[in-house]
């Protein structure tokens, strides 16, 4: 197989998938860092975001890319509400209970999607899209948009975290929650802010997955393992790590069909996860270990 075919059929899809995983992994690493638990409902929150966008597309006839920001906002609100309803009171007691609760929330979110939209596959737009060709590299418009939007979101997030007062407060909470409280940082507001960002990123990840493949109620759940593997691979609590991990896993998954049966794509993420935990639990970029 020549280089161009490899790029077109494996690398490009891998990069796109990697971008999607990166967005999800950033959210996961933020929850690990600031809130200190494994957010098992992350995938299904992405599913919800994707389907909310679908509702806007089918209900109001919006262009999917126009519906995206609204879906992101709605998911952000839902994320904060879910925290307030189901996680808040457990945080004081024990982190692992929050993890269990999040598994329950995952199930509930999935059930809601299945009840409202049914179990069949759906799409934002019908028909077949042809890829454009740039110097022999074939990439679809929506793939370019996906990559562009991902870059924009990531840059926006990094700017927020590095230069704004509340972004720094989030980093402080992730770094040393007791000291943050002692300094007068309002941890409840910071938590709400974190969930807002999580909701935004989840919806985006779900949307990008949906627009590049299709929408199914289990789509987010199947992303959960790769997203966690990416976050741990890169280093828990590190955003750059989540991005790196996401890209590695996305590209690895797409290339894995060269030597693994297609059904076992997700097995790869799992194996990478176990290897990282066994060999280097702090991840490639040396994050935290919970």
């Amino acid at each position, binding site marked *: 197989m020549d280089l161009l075919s490899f790029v077109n059929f494996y690398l490009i899809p891998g990069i796109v998938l990697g971008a999607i995983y990166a967005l999800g992994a950033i959210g996961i690493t933020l929850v690990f860092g600031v809130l200190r638990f494994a957010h098992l409902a992350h995938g299904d929150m992405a599913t919800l975001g994707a389907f909310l966008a679908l509702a806007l597309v089918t209900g109001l006839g919006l262009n999917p890319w126009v519906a995206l920001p609204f879906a992101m906002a709605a998911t952000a609100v839902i994320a904060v509400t879910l925290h307030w309803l189901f996680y808040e009171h457990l945080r004081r007691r024990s982190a692992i209970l929050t993890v269990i609760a999040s598994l329950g929330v995952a199930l509930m979110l999935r059930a809601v999607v299945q009840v409202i939209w049914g179990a069949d596959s759906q799409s934002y737009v019908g028909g077949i899209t042809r890829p454009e060709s740039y110097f022999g590299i074939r990439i679809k418009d929506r793939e370019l948009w996906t990559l562009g939007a991902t870059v924009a979101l990531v840059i926006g997030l990094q700017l927020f975290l590095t230069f704004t007062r509340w972004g*720094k407060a989030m980093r402080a909470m992730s*770094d040393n929650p007791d000291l943050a409280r002692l*300094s007068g940082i309002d941890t409840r507001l910071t938590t709400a802010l974190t969930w807002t960002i999580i909701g935004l990123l989840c919806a985006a990840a779900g949307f990008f997955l949906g627009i590049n493949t299709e929408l199914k109620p289990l789509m987010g759940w199947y992303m959960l393992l790769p997203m966690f593997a990416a976050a741990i691979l890169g280093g828990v609590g590190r955003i750059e790590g989540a991005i790196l991990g996401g890209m590695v896993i996305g590209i690895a998954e797409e290339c894995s069909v060269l030597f693994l049966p297609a059904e076992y794509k997700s097995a790869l993420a799992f194996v990478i996860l176990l290897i990282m935990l066994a060999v280097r639990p702090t991840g490639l970029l040396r994050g935290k270990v919970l």
Partner: protein
Amino acid sequence: MSHTQTGGPILSVAGVSGGYGGADILHGIDMTVGPHEIVGIVGPNGAGKSTALKAIFGLVQVRGGAIRFENRDITGWAPNRIVRCGIGYVPQVDNVFREMTVAENLEMGAFLRRHGLDEALERVYTLFPDLVEKRRKAAGSLSGGQRQMVAFGRALMLDPQLLLLDEPTAGLSPRYREQIFQIVRDVRAAGVAVLLVEQHAKQALAFCDRAYVLASGRNRAEGTGPGLVADREIAQMFLGG
């Protein structure tokens, strides 16, 4: 943040009992701190010295007695309320944001400030000139002594009237220890009262204006710093001879 009438203490702890969870560690302690004093708390291990600081700052439960700061009853207040009314607290361990830069650490200390951030930064950099060139370095990468400066600086960013220090020289070499004590004097010179807990009693008492000796959660002795050092009986009983 107002000053009380001159002459009266800014902090008064009266008959305070409390502790973590079930058992009380403090059994009715009393102490006062005047507006520009350096007051020390010394005593054997497990005396409740650190717990006393935490009780003042609202980090442990107070089950009896009263704590007044600048004529306000702050007993039972949550830490972020106390920090607002002019008390800063520097814990013994984990007292910096390791992954954040020196400048960011100070900014976090000033999180509650509505304005005057730059002036506050100036004041802290004047007090700790060593930090100026390190201000873009991660706090965790600094030496022990410089990290303590960051920890102090963070607590000073809100211009507190009173600074609570929990074993500020713990784990530091003798050279840095002396440096820290000098910093405490500088802090007091800048107008801040200091209440500090120290394990190295003799060194600390040498420069404290006054000090309290605690043992088993109770007051045992009180006096001027040098006075307590000179008292052989007290040194024998409580300060490790």
